[in-house]
């Protein structure tokens, strides 16, 4: 009998959730102290997928780092590519051809849809509904097919290049995207019927894991997580990179910052992404797809912090160049890493069933948390 039981009659239970657990989205280890089913203390333990990306980046050329960037957030590789090319481009002051910019935007937004679809599916599984997962993957598979026809890979695309993109769109890509969007829009309504309006789902998510506006800013959340708390912060608008200022789109925000708001923000973001893709396709004109850049680039010495609005949030790359072919320092600010930190605060006082609901709603990818 421990001291605690002697004194209080109760014992706090320590539950190790993960690293092998069905709903920790990878190798995340949560150390939970619980009073019955109520959590009194939570401590995320990360690093099981640590591959030393920043150290590796210092040993790879700037171009090869794009291939490496695929592995940060491996379900939204295009956005990672985007972040990886912006820094050296700005350092070398390269003007990317218009066509390449639009292709990049189409790819990044398709990837946002793909990533949010995974969120939708896995969140359903976390909550206990298995079937939406398969519906989400059916749609994601179509995006992956489109990607495959462009760059020849389905997961690690390695499509962006410093100065443009690696290959032009095949002839059937634009019709393919158009028909995908037409197909996808009604499916979103179906998702709403399956989960968003389902009373059990709402019961599980509404009012669970609230993050206030101040908290969200204080913990530097980004992406859908901060927008669900009512902060209108989207790098695509606030610090428009690439050609995002040419498009007309809304930024969905939530009010309460609970799990349901975070979920709804993502669902609405998919609609907005579809709008952006449609506009980008309209503007797509024949032309160069890559600027004239040497095969092995040597950005001038200097430093820059570039960031993109990845599906998970602000994906920043802080790169320092010393004028050689290798980056001197390549810091990756993974949105999942920063978003996950708030978990230790949010989980206090929730039930164990809420842990998966909250963790799922933050939408982390361990590849990006640990890098």
């Amino acid at each position, binding site marked *: 009998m421990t001291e605690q039981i002697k004194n209080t009659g109760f014992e706090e239970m320590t539950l190790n959730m993960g690293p092998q657990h069905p709903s920790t989205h990878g190798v995340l280890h949560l150390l939970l102290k619980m009073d019955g089913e109520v959590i009194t203390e939570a401590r995320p333990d990360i690093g099981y997928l640590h591959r030393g990306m920043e150290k590796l980046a210092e040993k790879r050329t700037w171009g090869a780092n794009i291939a490496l960037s695929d592995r940060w957030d491996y379900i939204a590789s295009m956005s990672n590519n985007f972040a990886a090319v912006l820094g050296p481009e700005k350092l070398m002051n390269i003007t990317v051809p218009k066509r390449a910019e639009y292709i990049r935007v189409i790819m990044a937004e398709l990837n946002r849809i793909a990533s949010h679809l995974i969120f939708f599916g896995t969140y359903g599984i976390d909550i206990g509904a298995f079937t939406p997962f398969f519906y989400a993957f059916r749609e994601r*598979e179509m995006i992956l097919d489109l990607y*495959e026809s462009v760059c020849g890979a389905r997961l690690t695309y390695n499509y962006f290049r410093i100065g443009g993109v690696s290959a032009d769109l095949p002839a059937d890509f634009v019709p393919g995207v158009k028909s995908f969007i037409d197909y996808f829009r009604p499916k979103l309504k179906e998702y709403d*019927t*399956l989960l968003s*309006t*389902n009373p059990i789902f709402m019961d599980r998510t509404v009012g669970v894991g609230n993050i206030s506006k101040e908290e969200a800013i204080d913990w530097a959340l980004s992406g859908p997580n901060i927008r669900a708390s009512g902060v209108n912060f989207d790098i695509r608008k606030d610090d428009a990179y690439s050609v995002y200022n040419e498009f007309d789109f809304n930024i969905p925000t939530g009010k309460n910052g609970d799990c349901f708001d975070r979920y709804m923000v993502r669902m609405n973001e998919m609609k907005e992404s579809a709008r952006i893709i449609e506009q980008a396709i309209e503007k797509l004109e024949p032309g160069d797809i890559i600027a004239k850049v040497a095969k092995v680039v040597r950005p001038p010495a200097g430093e820059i912090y570039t960031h993109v609005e990845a599906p998970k949030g602000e994906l920043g790359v802080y790169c320092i160049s010393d004028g050689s072919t290798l980056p001197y320092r390549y810091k990756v600010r993974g949105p999942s890493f920063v978003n996950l930190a708030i978990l230790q605060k949010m989980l206090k006082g929730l039930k164990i069933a809420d842990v998966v609901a909250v963790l799922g709603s933050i939408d982390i990818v361990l590849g990006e948390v640990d890098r």
Partner: protein
Amino acid sequence: MIKIFKYTWAILKGMGITFKYFFIRPVTVQYPKEKVKISSRWRGTLKQLRNEKGEEACDGCRICEKICPVNCISMEVYKDEKKNRRFTSSYVVNFGRCMFCGLCVEACPKKCLVHTPDFEFCAYDRESLILAKDKILR
């Protein structure tokens, strides 16, 4: 009371969707029996091409070796004085390391290194993933 009816209606609608899909043909592919069409740009295993004269087109410029982010290509080069060009005496790709990023194919100045549409690439041990020139030059 209205809430109950609303909830029941939402639940029934959700059930309607799963019921609808119960009768729709599944979208999955019975993989080993039927195979999906692979895109022509598929980044599969590597293959070296021969030139029109039938000799190997690679002249050992080592660009692919240098550009590879994971150092999976290694080669040895000699100069053939008669033909006045370089050849590779060995060209080894370690597919256990390769991450199929396609940078080597893109960089090849002779366009003699290409991807195959092969995606079923597995082996029982790491050693058999290291392919020498006799397997790569096709």
